[in-house]
């Protein structure tokens, strides 16, 4: 289960992969970086230049297995290598992979054992070869209870990772399923020769910056906490292409407003996620291009299905019908974003094309609520039933302005059908505690989806008293049965019809009001050439970026 929610866009290494490629206007007219020279060809180093990228928060340290935020993962993915590179084809079938550190691999006949051949050229920036030892060490890190890596679940079906020789690794699996290589590949390879001497129990108290070494295209060149992170080209990078840029600077600012100001003032070249409220300001600026793409996340209202007022699917359908989601997309997201349909994003292969977004229909909403026994018997404008007013508390993270905007709009829409909404904006930790305990009516939330289809964590009936992402305690025996059936199938094509049936059941039950499938706006200075921005990471092909001229300041 790799699914994240959070104040920032939280999404992790499983998804460090290209999706829904959208090339900028700049990339279309500018030539891509010329074929790069080999790493030893120092005389022909590429053109150079610096790109400045805006960030809202500093890295959570320099160890990819101790951080749990997207920014840190994306940044360290530039420094540490992965075995293979996921290809941007997740929407047609489970993603395929291209060689990276592993230059080839073969499956056993029963598809339970995978042998990978590592690239013999691979070197850390200190000259030490990257070998099977690093891969095995990384697996130990990923599955260590002391380290408790956020994504260790992905390794649940892997029984062993062993070194056959310096350049051959063998991985064994307990079952056959469509995402075996994806799960093995999850997480970057880290240096055994520098890190294995520290007991795992001490990792959280270790300063990792002095122990950093690069196996990817960039290396860490400097860090001023809360201000700036500087990466520079790793001259010892073993794979092609060597980056054209000689420096990448990450500038940290405390607010989105400050980042947008710096973007407009030319102090920042790239803003990975532009707040839609600032769209017009940025669009009007001649030196900045916008890249707009689906970011594989959806924002929704999660209803507490154990609440007596919200337990009836008909009531939840009425609430969904009462919300003018198109206006919400227009106002909150500047018109960018698709109306949500169901639990599988409409860009995925498993999506049921026969489903449509639920229409905005306040009259139907009123009828549905009336049929469920709600009426305004005391004439105060708020529905009531058996003396109880229909008043819902709607939680949203205090740190997230978009979600607060959504809560305010939902409040206005539901007021028109007689449902009183009390928005409550609470600090993230408080919100998580409340939804974990099931102590809420409704919550504005957003899920960042992995590139695989995984409905287990959100939609299976949760075990009592165990932590779950199924915050609303949704339970449908038929959904549970179909999920069991899906898990037994090794072939994704056979899974598809089952996924269609699950989606229809969930859409009919509306445990969520699926508001919007999000679109992300990335702002780029137009002097940057060759950038491919996609939903996995804005830095997907950073090593191929070039710049027209140095920043003005």
């Amino acid at each position: 289960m790799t699914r994240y929610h959070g104040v920032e866009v939280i999404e992790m290494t499983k998804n460090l992969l290209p999706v829904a490629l959208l090339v900028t206007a700049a990339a279309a007219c500018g030539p891509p970086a010329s074929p790069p020279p080999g790493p030893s060809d120092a005389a022909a180093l590429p053109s150079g230049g610096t790109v400045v990228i805006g960030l809202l928060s500093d890295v959570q340290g320099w160890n990819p297995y101790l951080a749990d935020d997207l920014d840190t993962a994306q940044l360290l993915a530039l420094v540490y290598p992965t075995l293979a590179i996921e290809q941007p084809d997740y929407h047609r079938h489970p993603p395929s992979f291209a060689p990276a550190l592993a230059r080839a691999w073969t499956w056993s006949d029963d598809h339970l054992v995978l042998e990978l051949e590592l690239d013999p050229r691979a070197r850390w920036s200190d000259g030490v070869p990257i070998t099977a030892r690093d891969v095995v060490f990384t697996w130990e890190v990923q599955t260590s209870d002391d380290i408790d890596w956020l994504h260790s679940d992905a390794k649940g079906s892997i029984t062993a990772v062993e070194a056959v020789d310096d350049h051959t690794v063998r991985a064994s699996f307990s079952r056959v399923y469509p995402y075996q290589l994806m799960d093995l590949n999850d997480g970057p390879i880290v240096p055994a020769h520098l890190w294995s001497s520290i007991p795992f129990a001490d990792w959280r108290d270790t300063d990792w910056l002095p122990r950093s070494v690069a196996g990817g295209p960039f290396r860490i060149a400097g860090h001023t906490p809360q201000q700036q992170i500087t990466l520079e080209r790793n001259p010892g990078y073993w794979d092609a292409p060597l980056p054209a840029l000689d420096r990448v600077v990450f500038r940290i600012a405390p607010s989105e407003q400050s980042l947008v100001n710096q973007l407009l003032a030319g102090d920042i070249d790239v803003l990975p996620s532009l707040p839609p409220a600032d769209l017009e300001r940025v669009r009007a600026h001649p030196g900045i291009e916008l890249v707009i793409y689906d970011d594989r996340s959806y924002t929704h209202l999660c209803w507490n299905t154990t609440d007596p007022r919200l337990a009836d699917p008909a009531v939840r359908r009425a609430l969904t019908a009462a919300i003018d989601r198109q206006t919400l997309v227009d106002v909150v997201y500047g018109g960018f974003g698709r109306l949500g349909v169901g639990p599988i994003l409409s860009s995925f292969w498993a999506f049921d094309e026969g489903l449509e977004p639920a229409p905005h229909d306040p009259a139907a909403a009123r009828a549905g609520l009336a049929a469920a026994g709600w009426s305004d018997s005391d004439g105060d404008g708020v529905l009531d039933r058996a003396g109880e007013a229909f008043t819902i508390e709607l939680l949203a993270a205090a740190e997230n302005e978009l979600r607060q905007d959504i809560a305010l709009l939902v409040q206005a829409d539901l007021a028109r059908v007689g449902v009183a909404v009390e928005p409550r904006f609470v600090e993230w930790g408080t919100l998580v505690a409340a939804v974990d305990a099931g102590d809420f009516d409704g919550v504005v939330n957003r899920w960042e989806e992995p590139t695989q289809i995984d409905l287990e964590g959100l939609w299976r009936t949760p075990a009592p008293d165990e932590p779950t992402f199924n915050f609303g305690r949704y339970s449908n025996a038929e959904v549970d049965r179909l999920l069991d059936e899906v898990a037994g199938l090794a072939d994704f094509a056979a899974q598809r019809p089952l996924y269609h049936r699950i989606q229809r059941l969930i859409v009919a039950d509306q445990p969520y009001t699926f508001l919007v499938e999000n679109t992300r706006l990335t702002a780029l200075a137009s002097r940057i050439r060759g950038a491919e921005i996609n939903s996995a990471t804005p830095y997907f092909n950073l090593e191929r970026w070039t710049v027209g001229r140095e920043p003005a300041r």
Partner: protein
Amino acid sequence: MRRLVARRLLLLAPMVWLVATLTFAVVVAAPGSYADAVDHPGLDAAQREALRARYGLDQPLHRQYLSWLGAVLRGDLGVSFVTKEPVTRLLGRALPPTLLLGGAALLLDFLLGVAVAVAAARRPHGWFDRVSTVVGLGVAGLPSFWVAGLAVLVFALLLGWFPASHMLSAGADRMSGGARLADLLHHLVLPAACLGLAGAAGTARYLRAALLDIRSERFILAARARGLSERRVLWVHTLRPALLPAITLLGLSLPVLVSGSVVIETVFSWPGVGLALLRAAQARDLPVIMAITMLGAVAVLVGSLIADLGYAAADPRAREDLR
């Protein structure tokens, strides 16, 4: 004078102790707060206990207090909940930018304040006096975050004269010494102006009143009678005695400056103590909040001490009062 200094320094120590104790009382002893911040919803009971033991929360309160106070005395302000780095290291990094910004603002506060006050006192109730009084009132009343936001909009975004934020350009580490200094000063102008402006209004107002008071005193009339030029009377004979209380005023403006730095540093992403405090508050990073709050209080205590002593050094008459 030496005895005065020693006495005041001795008095400072219990005040600092009191400040530290109050901070501890508010943060740690307040029911639930510190323990809640350590707790994380995802933890199981054993992990929670381990964490509480690590932060000493399983100890009785008085023991927590004593070990905390001991650590503070040794210069150990704890470890940030968020970044896991020692708070002292964080402060060591954040303090120089704040001192720079505060120093520049104080300088502006003083120079602008004196200039405006002198110009206004030259012709009391003349046009400059009236205009500057009204403008000063307005400046003091406008919220600093509003002024700072407007300054960014106008001078950074519309005119492009100054950078919108940060202390150095992204490429500053590659600049030569001189260019780097120029870059720093370029970044300093807007935040220092925003921070110093409100203080300057107060200084000018106070100094103007003091100047007018002194003007009517006998020794000024005597100087005038001796036929000294009006300019000399104003700059030498009136300003000098009026500046004495202004020294105290600068001591008093320190808390305002320290508070103001939070807003200004936030608007301008200035890497100082105020910004660190706000970030810590957003993340409920209590060790950092406690340390910075204490630091702020100690700075105010030391500031007022320096102002008092400076005043005493400049004016023998004041020494008796300060005993």
